[in-house]
């Protein structure tokens, strides 16, 4: 996945209202009116959030029906979940790697004696 795509997904997710909209859509399709209901927000404001989510590929909107139901698209979310998982693993793996590397540094010092640091 291109870095830009991940960035636009994250940017879209970086808003609590949009995350709440996604959580709502996770339990099934619904209309813009239904989505607006739990938020103290005008329809145009909700529509704006939906456009951001749609551009990021996180939701799709039906064209068939007049009420254009929204539904969640799992593809980009899967990438985000993978990324977050990787992030946690990354730190654990990074520290493991550091430990391993330090053992190498220690062994080297033992063999060659501590080198004086220049400057």
């Amino acid at each position, binding site marked *: *996945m291109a*870095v830009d795509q*991940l*960035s636009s997904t*994250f*940017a879209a*997710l*970086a808003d*609590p209202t949009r*995350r709440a909209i*996604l*959580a709502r859509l*996770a339990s099934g399709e619904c209309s813009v009116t239904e989505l607006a209901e739990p938020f103290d927000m005008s329809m145009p404001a909700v529509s704006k959030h939906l456009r951001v989510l749609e551009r990021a590929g996180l939701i799709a909107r039906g064209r068939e029906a007049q009420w254009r139901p929204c539904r*969640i*698209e*799992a*593809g980009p*979310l*899967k990438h*985000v*979940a*993978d*990324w*977050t*998982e990787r992030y*946690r*693993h*990354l*730190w*654990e*793996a*990074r*520290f*493991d*790697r*550091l*430990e*391993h*590397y*330090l*053992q190498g*540094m*220690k062994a080297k*010092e033992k063999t060659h004696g501590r080198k004086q640091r220049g400057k």
Partner: protein
Amino acid sequence: MAVSSVANSDTFKVTTPSDREITLTRLFDAPRRLVFEALTRPEHVKRWWGILDDQYSVPVCEMDLRVGGKWRIVGRGPHGEGPEFYGEYLEIVPPERLVNTEIFAPFPDAGSVVTVVLTEEDGKTRLTVTAAYPSREVRDMVLQTGMETGAALSYDRLEEVARELR
């Protein structure tokens, strides 16, 4: 936690000491001085930072280690370039303390202040890295974005739909 054969791996912990912070900690079987060097000298950092296996490398690692000096790291993995991090050193007290700003390139407005503390513990060194974000929202985004949405969706469903999309 993943089972790992690497020494002290089970001492790795992630906690949230306050609304705006994430803390990572781990013990290392090496003197503090060596750990500090491994964290602050590019020739060392390039050998361990983000190197998950031999598909990973660190093509860019610049560290101007003085107060006000800049640093920048770009990793490279099987999927190409990235992630890119950069920042500035605020406090340098070898071998016990290092404070710097850290910005994850895609989110320049959501930078953090990272405090690295090294303490000696029974002949080992405890590394504690605390990242403080500008707000709880940003911290939670870093920590939870994927997990939160993932939990709402349930991973099973996600997996199922993702498979359909393939």
